[in-house]
């Protein structure tokens, strides 16, 4: 009951108070700089990583980044900076 109310209140909060959606909805924020960097905040953990692919878990599913020469430049809890040649960023429903 409370959870449902919560979910109905949140979009309303975003609309009327202009609050950032990633904070309110606990969505990942992804910043891409050209083909070079991808900066992902607010993820729920790393699922798989190789030098051509990175899969991250989120609340709603997975984010999959493909490309080549991947290096994780920085990794702290809930934040990842990926460097390499990025080809594709896709969302996979969980």
């Amino acid at each position, binding site marked *: 009951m409370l959870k449902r109310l919560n979910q109905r209140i949140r979009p309303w909060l975003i609309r009327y108070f202009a609050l950032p959606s990633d904070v309110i909805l606990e969505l990942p924020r992804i910043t891409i700089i050209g083909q070079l960097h991808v900066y992902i905040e607010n993820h729920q953990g790393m699922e*798989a*990583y190789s030098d051509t692919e990175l899969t991250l878990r989120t609340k709603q599913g997975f984010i999959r980044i493909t490309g080549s020469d991947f290096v*994780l430049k920085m*990794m702290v809890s809930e934040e990842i900076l990926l460097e390499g040649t990025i080809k594709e960023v896709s969302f996979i429903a969980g």
Partner: protein
Amino acid sequence: MKQKQASWFTGYVTVEIRGDAPEQFFQECSRQGIPVWDIKKTSSDICQGNVKLTDIKAIKQVIRNSNYKLTFAKRSGYPFIIRRFRRKKELLLALAMSVLLVLILSNIIWKVEIAGVPSDIEEKVNQQLEDYGIHPGAWTFTLDSPSDIQQQLIEDVPELLWAGIQQNGTTFYLEGVEKLLVEEEENLEPRNLVATKKGVIKYMYVSKGVPAVEVNDYVQPGDLLVSGNLNEEIESNEQEEEEDSQQTLVAAQGEITATTWYEVAVTVPFETDYETLTGNRETKYYLEFGSVRIPIWGFGDPEYELKAYETEKKPLKFFNWTLPISFVEETISEKVHTNMERTKDEAIAAGIQQAKNELALELGPEAEFISEKVLQETTESGKVKLNLYMTVEEDISTPQLISENQMSR
């Protein structure tokens, strides 16, 4: 990114993880709050990443709870470099010694260059410089300042009119100007000699011209002493041009010494205070870094009651740069404070001496004191006031151009 820059100073290690899905190990690390960076997957079961040196313990804890294998691939950063250096003591020693060597060599004179003077004087100057301790191989900080050397050199080598000394790194450049004895001007303009002061003529030596006064004559300022007009004795002049003009003019030359008088008033206190150095002294040497002084030689203060300090500072050099380190020489001399009470006679004697000194300064070194007489003395609040009458012998003549003289008439 911030943690990565600072990590160079604290040191970091590249770890290699082997096992099934090795990236999950780093995932675990970041969840535990251990920062990891530059993670690379080199093959399907090997993953490399950097962790801080201080996090090694925590990493090992994570490893123990899993079935990954950990190897240290590379150690980087400042602590490891230091450790590597420490193992190579000879290298470190050699490095320190080479810096020291450069430091020593930068503070040695390598070359003394003398320019602008003929070779015989150059030889003399070189000899003189050697006496001052300026020669290849001498320490620069034991030398006097260039301006002092300059002055000393001009005094000791009379042939030099001027000497410029410049220390450029390890080279001493000396530029000299030779004194050329200029012949006295041949064609002086016709002139008379006139008196500058009143006095009684004592001696006369006239080399050119006609004397207008005699010994024991009393003269006033402006009186003609030697005339440059030779109408009567033409044949004695060599430069003279025989023309129709009746006047033959020469530049009168001579020395007219006369007795002159001065009245001088001096005040002398009975009691005097003065400080003198006894000649006992000690020299200390320091190295100075900013405001910190480290003694090198001469420890402990001498037990003088009163001390006079004299310090000389010379900056050390490294190649051409002046280091913030100075070589300081401090001389401590013993001082004696004297309080003297004079009798009246002594005070008068001191007063006469003082008056003579003052007058000598005014008249120049050629004046000669003949006698002095105390005209008046009064004692007043611990002081003696004297009125002195001094008799002096001095040259009173001064040239006066004849044309100018005539015009003024």
